[in-house]
């Protein structure tokens, strides 16, 4: 099995999809000839022609609306939004249209599609190249949200997303696009959506994260272990609809939970997880669920270190729950 970085794994998944299904098309700003600014769609146009992989004008609302039309007609668009920070002009098309089409038409007009977009901080990108906006979309019923944490995951989850019968927002942790490497089979495989992954079993505290943060959580778990604390680390993978069974079971087992994400705390997805897990597992909890998150500020260029959750802070939160 070759070792791939995340971009290579995503690119590989796209090539496989194009090969297997002639209805898959990919487009976005600079996605065609150039293969995308992160080169995720590299080689697709060369191999499959300008009809199936093409450049979009700079217009995110257009990209989302156009993808809607393609999906309605029965194609399977995999659209790229160049940075998730720039997805908001498409918010109406995503939240009012893509999310609602199946429902409002009584099931007549589903629009299965994938919108891929790089997200996240830790790269000195400042306000507009660091955002983790996944939580905004969690409040809109009708769209799935998937976030992979490494190349193997990225390929399997992307292939499952392309196969899925619903619209999927696929957020890619660009911080680890090239740094995360894994053995990735060249063949087609899917990782089922809505199944979380217990990356490390443990007994004292459940640690939940996704994307690039998952690795920070793993590091935090190592720090904790050095101090004799046993951590269960869960990579959520699918944010909506998420795997409540795995979370409930883990929290019931450990009685303690820390949720970590990059996005600002207020109304970040940690809030929903915390509220739901409290509601369902109160009697099993030895301490309130903690959130270790980005601050309630915008992403500050010169304070990347201060902003981004790190293993020591997560350890601090772990200890808080243990000492509660």
């Amino acid at each position: 099995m070759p070792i791939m970085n995340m971009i290579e794994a995503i690119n590989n998944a796209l090539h496989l999809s194009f090969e297997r299904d002639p209805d898959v098309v990919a487009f976005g700003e600079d996605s065609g000839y150039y293969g995308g600014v992160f080169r995720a769609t590299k080689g697709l146009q060369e191999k499959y022609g300008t009809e199936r992989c093409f450049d979009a004008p700079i217009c995110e609302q257009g990209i989302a609306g156009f993808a809607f039309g393609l999906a309605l007609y029965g194609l399977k668009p995999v659209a790229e939004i160049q940075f998730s920070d720039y997805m908001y002009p498409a918010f109406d098309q995503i939240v009012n249209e893509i999310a609602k089409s199946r429902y409002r038409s009584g099931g007549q007009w589903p629009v299965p599609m994938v919108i891929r977009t790089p997200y996240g901080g830790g790269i000195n990108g400042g306000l507009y190249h660091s955002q983790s906006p996944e939580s905004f979309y969690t409040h809109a019923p009708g769209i799935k949200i998937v976030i992979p944490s490494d190349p193997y995951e990225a390929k399997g989850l992307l292939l499952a997303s392309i196969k899925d019968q619903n619209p999927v927002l696929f957020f890619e942790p660009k911080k680890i696009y090239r740094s995360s490497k894994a053995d990735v089979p060249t063949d087609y495989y899917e990782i089922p959506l809505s199944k979380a992954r217990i990356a490390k079993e443990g007994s004292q505290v459940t640690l939940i994260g996704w994307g690039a943060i998952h690795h920070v959580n793993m590091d935090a778990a190592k720090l904790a272990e050095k101090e004799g604390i046993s951590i269960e680390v869960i990579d959520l993978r699918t944010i909506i609809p998420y795997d409540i069974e795995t979370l409930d079971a883990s929290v019931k087992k450990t009685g303690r939970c820390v949720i970590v994400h990059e996005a600002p705390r207020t109304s970040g997805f940690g809030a929903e997880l915390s509220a739901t897990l409290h509601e369902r597992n109160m009697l099993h909890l030895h301490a309130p669920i903690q959130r270790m998150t980005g601050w309630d500020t915008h992403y500050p260029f010169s304070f990347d270190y201060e902003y981004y959750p790190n293993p020591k802070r997560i350890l601090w939160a772990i200890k808080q729950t243990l000492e509660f």
Partner: protein
Amino acid sequence: MAKAPKLPVHQILDENGELLKGASVPDMPKEDIVELFKTILKVRVIDSRMFKMQRQGRIAFYMATQGEEATHVGTAYALKPQDWMFPQYREHGAAFVRGLTLQQFINQIFGNSGDLNKGRQMPMHWGSRNLNLVTISSPLGTQIPQCAGAAYAMKIKKKDSVALAFFGEGTTSEGDFHAGLNFAGVYKAPAIFFCRNNGWAISTPFHRQTAAENIAVKAVAYGIEGVRVDGNDLFAVIDIVRQARERAVKGNGPTLIEALTYRLSSHSTSDDPSAYRSEEKDDGPWKLKEPAVRLRKFLGNQGLWSMKEEQDWEKACEKELLDAIKVAENTPKPEMDALFEDIFDELPWNLREQKSQLITFLKNEGKR
């Protein structure tokens, strides 16, 4: 100096129901002209009855299309069944021409279990997958880039078909209008963008919507064809849409059609136009130009239509409508399951749990 190109307004039938000099009726059987005229009359019967129904509190909401019927009736006629239409909300004539039944239309308004949308949307949000009528959604302009996408899909699938989006002149101000026309232009998608310029967007007149001379010139911004047509002239509409369709399927790109018409009705049942326009000064001149007046004269001159036939037809429409309303009123609302279905293809755990919670509530509330 960026002068707008002067665009003529295509017209065939004048306000007296006479053909313009040198103009001829588009190639179509005479019976079809009668049929389309009858559809226009039927739409009027429906509009006026449904308006009253709303006033009586029997339906929640309604939007009439009085005066604008030729724009959509003609367009639907000019298209082929495999062509897709993305309506805005004031084009139910197109639905009937395409084959939506009156019962389906009325069921949608009632949101009952016969509604193809499973009762989920407000009145005037019809649509039918079988008929290639994309279900209407309220946010203005969103259908425009969607239409461009569907048209592009047809192109790369090498279909002999086009996608057409209807919208009002007010909607051309939305960013999605810009997006849709630009994408369609770049990809030469077989799309038709049909603007009903009916002079008003709720209370806002055309000249406060844009400083452009007209809507059709906006085509220049996207390198696509732009044409103007008398939207109250059924023949001219059919002709111009056929031309646009031809252009599209031949690979010559999209067309923006501006159909000049007038919203003789109020915006909707929630609206009171007397607060912002004068029936006499604003509406008056347009009452003389409306499509039914012209067609009635034209068909009368040809001996194809009489007032007697009109009265009979209106009575028949009225009866069909009242029957459909009765059926709709007696059709139960959708099963409660419909509240939770179709968010995704399958019910996720949260919706399963919420559904059983609602069942508990409804029992508790004596509603089940």
